[in-house]
């Protein structure tokens, strides 16, 4: 799967379901967790979304800015598990 095919639905999910602003563009290198854009509750939701959508497991210990903080890093994590 191409990176864009992974990034696009995640960006759409973050903008629509988490930020409640579907028009909001999520930049590939924009800090999502360390900036406070995604809080701890929605981070779990994002993990569940990724697991459902791409069939990869994101551990509870990986839901933090050290493991992934940007869309690019999350895409890389998903690709490494596929």
């Amino acid at each position: 799967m191409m990176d864009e095919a992974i990034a696009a639905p995640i960006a759409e999910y973050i903008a629509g379901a988490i930020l409640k602003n579907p028009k909001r563009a999520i930049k590939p290198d924009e800090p999502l967790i360390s900036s406070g854009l995604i809080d701890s509750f929605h981070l779990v939701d994002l993990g569940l979304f990724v697991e459902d959508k791409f069939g990869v497991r994101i551990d509870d210990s990986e839901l933090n800015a050290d493991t992934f903080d940007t869309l690019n890093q999350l895409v890389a994590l998903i690709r490494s598990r596929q």
Partner: protein
Amino acid sequence: MLATETSPPAATGRWVLDQAQARSIGLCVLSVLAVYALQPAMPIRQMDFWLPTASLVLTVVVWAATSSALATHRRPDRATLTDAALIGGITLGIAALRFAEPLSMLITRTPPPAVLSVLAALAIAALLAVAAGCIIGPRPAWTTALVIALVALLFVLKYEPLTQAFAALLRVAQGQSAAQASALDVRWLGFSYICFRWIAALRERALGRLPAMSLREFVTYAVFAPALIAGPIDRPERFLRDLRASFAFNWPDATEGVRRIAVGAFKKFVLADWLALLALNEVNAAQAQGAGWMWLLVYAYAWRIYLDFGGYTDMAIGVARIFGVRLPENFHRPYLKPNLTQFWSSWHMSLAQWFRTYYFNPLTRALRMRAWAVPTIIFVGQVTTMLLIGVWHGVTLNFALWGLWHGVGLFLHNRWADFAKGRLTAMQERPRLQVAISAAGVLLTFHFVALGWVWFALPDAALSLGVFRKLFGL
């Protein structure tokens, strides 16, 4: 990620150590010695030897229960026996210093117990480790039993009436009067932090994510000298990565380490200790007359606790850095955050992350699967997590109220953020307004946190309410 099936680097069979091996052994020896050397004296005889020994014994037991290699081969290999001999040898060596008084004072505050008693304790420790390895080792799900036992012990040490009963028990065991027992008799150095590292390893093992660690590596992780007193609480996998990385002493790391130590010492011993003279406590809370003075005491406490704890952390990170271990940061400008959610992503970060990983995230995931209403999940998750963080400091009403204060604060911020999200998008096109709102958020968040310290700093809820009344002129 370190593979869970990867064994630790095999012994080369040569008696020549490279710098990485020398550092690994040196850090283990240093950490085991620090467990004894940093333990303060207690009124109960020889407890400054027995409690550190108990820390090491429990560490070995947890290692045996979580070691995948031990569970597979059912017997310790040569490297494990060498590591056990090293750790047991240090303990025995410290006990043997009683024959070379006053040399024992270099390590323990009071003369250590008889060598025969220590030998018997080590034999019991070996039996416990074998039992843990045989019973729990092959059944990772059974690690939960050990987690429950450790949490129960932590509760005993955090809940004053139980700590006092425990002190009475120890006094009787040492032939002292139980009538004199006090909760202050049992000051188990670093237990809260070591215990959370044990639990992290046990949970990771239960979930099949714990990398294979040698006994020496695990002991170094659990009682790592720089982080023994006040954290940070590292994750096993991350710590192991640094410990196994090739190491050569280098000036940039050493210089940065020394800089962090100097900054930390200045924060702790100059700024925090000076602010301690002014910071809110039981005595000056009663003496302060006007609201202005009371606010000054609260501000001083807020900065003292940050500079004190932040200073300790800087020093721990600095010392570890010299040895090539990059401990996780614990603070990131917490008083400059525009909301409480971001404050808790930058205050005591390693503890908050521990609770997110092993409590909040699994709980939220489970409740999400049960399709509870979102606000209910957030309320339950935030409030119970913060209550637990509160009572981790001590099982008292005031620590619980401090946790509740932050839990409810986090929930309210979450609801406000959720409400504002869809409505305040126009604000993004007005940068000046955004800056003004952010500045107001920083001020509001700082004051919410500072007022929260009124619960934390005082031993009694009535005293805290009295301070609130004075602060607001009620």
